């Protein structure tokens, strides 16, 4: 035990030094910025140094020992395992997406904050200590031993790969976005550069390398998240603890919202004017859609000719340049085919509808014009929270982390540390959203179009759909309804919105990169382990020598990475949906079988198979028939959005496990002994172990 505590204090010393080093590095770079080093170079230095740092740690902890490779030798102290879990957990979606979602949807976005933290209560109470006691390498391992036979293990492997793969695509997508934005590389190249660094780490050292890299990534991502928020908080309230201070800012934001929504104030009147124009545009676009349905191709041709005539007429009478430019633009953007016209105009209707309605109050729960809308929002909010929580408690790459601690007690403590380290960021995200909103409402809205800050045009150049400010009512002043800001850029752009030095922007980009990398690392490892350990070693060739097992694991990692990069380069879209879907899938497939497997001795193989297949297929079916991407568009069940498909899958899973078990023979004595073994920390004995 004393060796362990020495190991632990040594680690603490290393990582304190490391944190100091990171801060020193930031200070050094800000001095460089003062000396006039160009921004592009600073961005390169930041990304380059951090990525090579992770790779360096990967090399240092390279290993070819099985236990080291799969579970880091089971000697990670609780606190460090907590940090690594936190980094594993906080993905590009948490780092970039969370504050953006909160910015856009206010209270309703808090479902993610609650769902992604509350799930750890379930992990602590139902899973982590018991899985650690069981002490194997993967989640399907547990299913295989508890329920016996290859059936449950096989389904477990399939489900683990399905949800990890869905999740990893979202990470690589975020990675490509950051790399391509801050280095100017093409998106596809960005994906492969990011992927290279992920591989480097998990390839060499498996779980051990990934754990130590993740701890260092956690430090960077936390520092990167905190600095701009604290800075903003001090600037606006004089209080360096943003989590407390932003209540005051929130009050001001709410007051400002009231002014902007009230047409009797000068600012509100201008907003109302813009909204009226947008409403008109929406009605026009709707009319065009109707006419298109009736007239088809002919209608498009007539409209195009009309536009051409209008442009010619304008040129004829030497109208103002601005008017001609608008007409040219309209003609240029005019859709070529019926299908294109349909999708473009539908999007237009949707966008105009959103912006022409009054702004929803940030702090108000389930804001809506009538009772039915509000009820619907509340229902979906709760369903989403539920799915995210249960999904958290069932994601294989998170559960796998609790195999790496030294003991059951440490596993429990480690959940606490994980939640603490995760909360540090999650408590800050709502503050960031409110502070950024305050800046946009007060600095951007009401400013003049001739003096737009440079970050607006910089982001507009990246993607018009993410950032767009156009003078709709032509009064030369920015109104809120004239501003389009995509959620994904809120975190990345906040330092610029607030006018902080460029170093902070680069730091935030590096933080986002760390978040995406760390999660992707963990996920890739889960997929590769499921294939090499559960499929190859446990099912195909149980006598395979260690060397070959590891070699196969590493080879598979490469294959998985290339597949993932390929799918990502197709841009399947909507990150938030993919992440949410992964949670719903994991929750439906694993949670019932795992929990009942630990707490209900009567649960057996038939039940587990029925439960996992039932839960998973209901969940997948619901997503398939309702998510627009698949094109079925069946009516929703009880108005629940497809992202929360788990709300149907999870109960079905539980019911199927119970029914399946009741209608077949109870499990044998060996399995009951295993359940006892898992439940009591001090039980040793071969009857439990013997099953594996």
């Amino acid at each position, binding site marked *: *035990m004393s060796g362990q505590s020495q190991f632990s204090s040594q680690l603490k010393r290393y990582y304190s030094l490391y944190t100091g080093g990171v801060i020193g590095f930031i200070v050094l770079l800000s001095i460089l910025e003062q000396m006039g080093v160009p921004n592009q170079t600073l961005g390169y230095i930041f990304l380059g140094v951090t990525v090579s740092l992770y790779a360096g740690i990967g090399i240092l902890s390279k290993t070819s020992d099985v236990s080291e490779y799969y579970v880091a030798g089971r000697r990670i102290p609780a606190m460090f395992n907590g940090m690594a879990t936190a980094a594993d957990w906080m993905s590009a979606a948490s780092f970039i997406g969370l504050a953006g979602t909160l910015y856009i949807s206010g209270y309703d976005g808090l479902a993610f904050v609650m769902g992604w933290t509350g799930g750890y209560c379930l992990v602590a109470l139902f899973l982590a200590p018991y899985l650690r006691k069981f002490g194997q390498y993967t989640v399907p391992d547990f299913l295989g031993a508890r329920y016996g036979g290859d059936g449950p293990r096989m389904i477990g492997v399939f489900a683990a790969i399905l949800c990890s793969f869905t999740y990893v695509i979202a990470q690589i997508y975020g990675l490509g976005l950051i790399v391509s934005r801050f280095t100017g590389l093409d998106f596809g190249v960005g994906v492969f550069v990011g992927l290279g660094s992920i591989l480097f780490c998990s390839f060499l050292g498996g779980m051990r390398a990934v754990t130590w890299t993740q701890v260092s990534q956690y430090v960077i991502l936390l520092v990167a998240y905190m600095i701009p928020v604290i800075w903003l908080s001090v600037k606006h309230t004089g209080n360096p603890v943003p989590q407390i201070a932003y209540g005051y800012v929130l009050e001001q934001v709410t007051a400002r919202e009231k002014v902007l929504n009230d047409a009797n104030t000068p600012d509100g009147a201008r907003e109302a004017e813009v909204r009226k124009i947008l409403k008109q545009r929406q009605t026009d676009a709707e009319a065009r859609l109707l006419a298109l349905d009736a007239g088809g191709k002919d209608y498009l041709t007539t409209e195009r000719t009309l536009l051409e005539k209008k442009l010619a007429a304008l040129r004829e009478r030497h109208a103002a340049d601005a008017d001609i430019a608008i007409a040219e633009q309209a003609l240029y953007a005019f859709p070529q085919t019926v299908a294109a016209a349909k999708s473009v105009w539908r999007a237009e209707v949707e966008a105009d509808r959103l912006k022409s309605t009054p702004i929803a109050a940030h702090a108000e729960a389930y804001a809506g014009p009538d009772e039915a809308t509000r009820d619907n929002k509340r229902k979906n909010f709760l369903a989403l929270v539920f799915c995210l929580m249960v999904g958290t408690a069932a994601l294989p790459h998170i559960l796998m982390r609790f195999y790496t601690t030294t003991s059951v007690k440490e596993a429990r403590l480690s959940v606490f540390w994980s939640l603490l380290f995760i909360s540090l960021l999650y408590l800050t995200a709502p503050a960031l959203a409110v502070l950024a909103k305050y800046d946009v409402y007060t600095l951007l809205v009401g400013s003049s179009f001739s003096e737009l800050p440079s970050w607006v045009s910089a982001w507009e150049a990246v993607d018009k759909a993410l950032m767009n400010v156009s003078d709709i009512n032509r009064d030369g002043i920015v109104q809120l309804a004239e501003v389009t800001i995509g959620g994904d850029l809120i975190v990345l752009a906040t330092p610029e919105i607030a006018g902080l030095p460029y170093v902070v922007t680069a730091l935030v980009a590096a933080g986002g990169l760390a978040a995406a990398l760390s999660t992707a690392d963990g996920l890739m490892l889960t997929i590769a382990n499921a294939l090499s350990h559960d499929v190859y070693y446990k099912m195909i060739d149980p006598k395979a020598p260690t060397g070959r097992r590891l070699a196969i694991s590493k080879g598979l990692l490469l294959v998985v990475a290339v597949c993932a990069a390929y799918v990502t380069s197709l841009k399947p879209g909507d990150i938030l949906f993919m992440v949410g879907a992964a949670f719903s899938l994991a929750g439906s497939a694993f949670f019932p079988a795992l929990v009942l497997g630990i707490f209900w001795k009567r649960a057996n193989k038939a039940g587990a198979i029925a439960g996992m297949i039932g839960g998973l297929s209901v969940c997948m079916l619901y997503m398939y028939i309702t998510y627009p991407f698949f094109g079925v568009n069946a009516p929703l069940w009880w108005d629940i959005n497809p992202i929360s498909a788990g709300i149907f899958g999870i109960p079905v899973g539980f019911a199927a496990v119970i029914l399946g078990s009741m209608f077949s023979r109870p499990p044998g004595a060996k399995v009951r002994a295993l359940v006892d073994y898992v439940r009591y920390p001090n039980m040793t004995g071969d009857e439990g172990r013997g099953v594996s």
Partner: protein
Amino acid sequence: MTGALLSVWFLATFGVSWFARDLQALTLLGFPFPFFMAAQGALLIYLLLVGFYAWRMGKLDKKYGVGEDA
């Protein structure tokens, strides 16, 4: 104990969210109460729950002699 902790968890999450609109008028540190709960309160409660569970289970294990080092 698991049951008690779980009901606290349930109340803090679903209870408050269900009645969010009715609790809107209460304020705490300048936040409307439901907003504060969802953004911060619930998280702190979760943290307490997990911490308490780890500490308490460690003690119970020792008391009944089922701890690893007992």
